[in-house]
């Protein structure tokens, strides 16, 4: 019996041993949470966020830079505050707030630093810097706010803010962490990767008291931070500010492009906002106000707002007709037989030049009819489809109905109706003909364009048939790298010779046509075309495209002013002032300048059936 008991005893030992090994197997091989918990314990990730790249204008003037701000961190176990009252006075917080913050920090971790006070300014920091040595367990970490030299360009620049939860979970390369700052819109978003640089990470081993104990794995996982790259934009910030001032008390857009390069000189979205409002510690407060503003100052209108091009589109009709050989500069149409009305003008010899100069609606009605029907076969339905097909193929070359590829995230395609489109609208092939779609002839109907597209169109006219995709940034980083896309000219498939009559017509539109006295500059040879964009919401939008000087153009521009009426009234004078400013560096027509700076069309602007009051604007 006793010998057997040894076996029994040992079997019991063995049982315990097997249970232990089983549990070890579970802990060490099966459950991976312990590994993570261990890294969490002993490995501290020290993140170095580099300063974001700065932004410069076309002449190297600094527009956006960074101002350091200071975050105060607390490590609860090490923190000793003997004189709470003095501490609270120093940091400008109440005793209750101090207690809450301390409690939160304790709840997070005893040994890891947690954020105590956010965004202390340089002044605050200077005040507490010396006193900080008296408070062990408190440390300062530096971050930076965007700071703006100018109040202009805010919509195109976009803003930077803490990354939101959705973007955090949707990100592809898993770069961002909670609390990281990221470009939300505009150039800040488009050039985010260049601007942000590369965050550095250092792994340090720490003991249970949070004291650093050297590099983890000899630093082989460490990544050095790479500074953000600067952006060199093509914007002339002084011109931008001037255009901005002209667009005060108005809703609309200005886009000015250097035709030879596609560089955007100015891009105004009105109403706008002071960019520094969204760059400080009061981000959420101001964002709230701006986001709720019915005039939507946060939206960058030039690449995204939808308008009908109105009469400015007649230039497209002229060029397409000429290219197809259906029109010649000598083609003459009378007012007779057209359902569209016209202004009073000399129609004795109504050729293409005259029609552009006076923006003759019946002329382009007849011209468009000819463009659709000439050299086509079948009944009117079939001929309309054939005609529209070749028309839309040519018009698409100008960038209508598609993205131009500007370096902004919110560019919209707009709409260029083609055969497919009308087949869908009229539910079937050969169900529509010229008489259904003749509004296209004068830039109304289903056409939708953005101010950016029209500015690019002005550049195409200025260049006599080609453009470089418009862009705001002409160089990224010290090497000023830029995508080849923004260096390569694109032809629109219209022969250069066809532009001569257009240039002449547009020149005379300015001199003695639709533009009027206020849009004339005595010493600059400007060519322009007015437009009046119909819309359901209310009074017509005033549209104007132009370029100058006529020979060797330096600037092409599109101006849209909402609900300001006929193109010659508001858009043309504003465009002429901007051109004058850009080409001469000064404006001599002070009376016109003053008039349009103070002019407001907001009384006509409707939204949600309410009239906007003047003082609800931010600027």
């Amino acid at each position, binding site marked *: 019996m*006793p010998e057997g008991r040894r076996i029994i005893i040992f079997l019991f030992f*063995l049982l315990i041993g097997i249970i232990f*090994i089983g549990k070890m197997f579970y802990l060490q091989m099966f459950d991976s949470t*312990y*590994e993570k918990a261990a*890294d969490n314990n002993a490995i501290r990730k020290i993140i170095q966020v580099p300063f974001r790249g700065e932004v410069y204008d076309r002449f190297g003037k600094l527009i956006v830079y960074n101002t350091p701000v200071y975050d105060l961190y607390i490590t609860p176990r090490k923190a000793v505050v003997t004189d709470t009252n003095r501490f609270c006075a120093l940091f400008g917080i109440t005793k209750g707030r101090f207690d809450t913050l301390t409690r939160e920090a304790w709840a997070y971790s005893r040994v890891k630093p947690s954020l105590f006070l956010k965004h202390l300014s340089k002044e605050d920091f200077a005040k507490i810097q010396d006193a900080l040595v008296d408070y062990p367990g408190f440390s300062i970490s530096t971050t930076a706010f965007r700071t703006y030299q100018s109040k202009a360009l805010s919509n195109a620049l976009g803003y930077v803010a803490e990354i939101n939860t959705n973007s955090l979970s949707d990100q592809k390369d898993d770069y961002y962490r909670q609390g990281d700052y990221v470009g939300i819109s505009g150039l800040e978003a488009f050039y985010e990767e260049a601007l942000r640089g590369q965050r550095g990470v250092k792994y340090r081993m720490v003991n249970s008291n949070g004291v650093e104990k050297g590099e983890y794995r000899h630093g082989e996982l460490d990544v050095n931070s790479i500074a953000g790259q600067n952006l060199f934009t093509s914007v002339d910030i002084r011109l931008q500010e001037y255009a901005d001032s002209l667009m005060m008390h108005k809703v609309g857009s200005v886009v000015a492009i250097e035709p030879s390069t596609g560089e955007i000189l100015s891009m105004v979205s009105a109403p706008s906002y002071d960019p520094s409002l969204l760059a400080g510690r009061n981000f959420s407060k101001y964002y709230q106000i701006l986001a709720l503003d019915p005039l939507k100052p946060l939206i960058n209108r030039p690449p995204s707002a939808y308008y009908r091009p109105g009469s400015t589109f007649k230039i497209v009709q002229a060029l397409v007709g000429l290219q197809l050989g259906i029109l010649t500069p000598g083609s003459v149409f009378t007012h007779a037989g057209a359902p569209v009305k016209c202004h009073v003008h000399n129609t004795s010899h109504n050729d293409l030049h005259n029609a552009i100069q006076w923006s003759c609606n019946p002329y382009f009605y007849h011209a468009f009819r000819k463009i659709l029907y000439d050299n086509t076969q079948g009944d009117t339905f079939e001929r309309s489809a054939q005609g529209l097909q070749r028309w839309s193929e040519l018009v698409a070359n100008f960038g209508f109905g598609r993205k131009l590829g500007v370096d902004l995230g919110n560019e919209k395609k707009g709409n260029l109706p083609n055969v497919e489109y009308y087949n869908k609208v009229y539910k079937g092939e050969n169900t529509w003909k010229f008489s259904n779609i003749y509004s296209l002839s004068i830039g109304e109907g289903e056409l939708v364009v953005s101010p950016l597209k029209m500015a690019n169109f002005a550049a195409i006219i200025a260049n006599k048939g080609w453009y470089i995709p418009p862009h705001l940034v002409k160089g990224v980083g010290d090497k000023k790298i830029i995508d080849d896309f923004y260096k390569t000219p694109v032809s629109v498939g219209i022969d250069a010779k066809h532009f001569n009559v257009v240039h002449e017509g547009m020149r005379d539109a300015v001199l003695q046509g639709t533009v009027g006295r206020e849009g004339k500059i005595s010493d600059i040879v400007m060519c322009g075309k007015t437009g009046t964009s119909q819309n359901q919401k209310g009074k017509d939008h005033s549209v104007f495209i132009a370029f100058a000087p006529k020979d060797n153009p330096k600037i092409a521009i599109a101006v849209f002013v909402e609900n300001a009426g006929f193109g010659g009234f508001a858009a043309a004078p504003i465009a002429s002032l901007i051109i004058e400013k850009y080409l001469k560096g000064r404006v001599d027509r002070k009376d016109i300048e003053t008039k349009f700076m103070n002019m407001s069309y907001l009384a006509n602007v409707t939204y949600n059936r309410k009239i906007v009051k003047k003082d609800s604007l931010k600027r």
Partner: protein
Amino acid sequence: MSQESNQIGKLDWISVGLYALFVLLGWMSIYSAVYNPEAPLWIFDEAFYTSNAGRQLIWIGTSLVLIMLIFALDFRFFESFAVFIYAAFMLALIAVPFLGVTINGSHSWFKLGGVTIQPAEFAKTATALLLAKYLNDPQVNLTKWMNQWRSALIIALPMLLIIGSNETGSALVFASFIILLYREGLPGEYPGLLIALIALFVSSLLLSPLTIFICLLVMAILFVIILPIYQRRLPQTYVRIAGAIAIIMALSTVVDWVVNHVLKEHQRNRIKVYLDPSFDTRGLGYQVTQSKIAIGSGGFWGKGYLGGTQTKFDFVPEQSTDFIFCTIGEEFGFVGVMAVIVLFLFFLWRLLYLADQQRSRFARAYGFGVVGILFFHFLVNIGMTIGLMPIMGIPLPFFSYGGSSLWSFTILLFIFLKLDAHRSDMLSR
């Protein structure tokens, strides 16, 4: 001298080798725990001897002296002086509350010069010796009540004294003498009953009284079904079953009452943490949570020697002493812990085998006492590092840091190995 060399020749070198291996592994783990990658100390640095690893090296050296002392003594000394040794340590246990010093919140240490000694550690050896000596009397038969009571008294006296000085964990070690008694003829019902009581204790903490009652009822019905027909018809059967259920239910109520009213706050908390691993992981459950993290993060191969982060950077409290196993788990992984468990079990098997080879009942009983004590430490110490046992301040024999611990286990083991080396002499007596 011829007797001396003879004696060395008969020494069980397998056990000695394993002892040396465990001590070495333990020292390596302690060294790793204090190892600072930025300023590694080596044994020639003076500062080294102020670290745990350095001091453990001193304890190991002095243990070798102790081993030589044991071997210098006559093997009959331990049997002859068992009563005196026992009496001396009982006096020490009585004196410690008055003359002792407090170390790590435990008022159970004597300070002799620069050395601190915990008499409770040595009382186990003394008790094993006296128990073995008592059982050496051929008259003693553990199936008899009288002898059972006397054996129990020998065990209970130091136990109560140690509980008196608030060292419940160390006191529980004495329960391991049930293995010695079982081997020496104590009826199997006693260890069976002990295991049943432990099971009842745990289940009454884990389960509600109603659940226990339902379980018992189901068991009773199953029991009745397998009984022979004639017994099923006897009313006494049902009275007995009802009585048994009543007693078990009463006991489980007593357990609750004891836990809530007799146990001290810190003991109650340890039980809470044991039953619910997620309970207060930053406070009361911190130790066991960190211990599991350390072991669990080791994976299959471990992080490599000196590569552990949890153990090296003090995340596991008491990590060189009671939680030394974490270091092995983290740095040597599953392979390492399995090796240690298998080697330890092999070591126990070897000692059991040697004990059964003894011709004298004294040596045999003492051997089983040694195995019981070692096993109990193994069970509780490793068990608590992985959350299978509640936390008790019990070291892992030979591995854990500490002079008292290493010395007492060395003495405990080598007295047996000394006796074993002389087993042919005993026969000649």
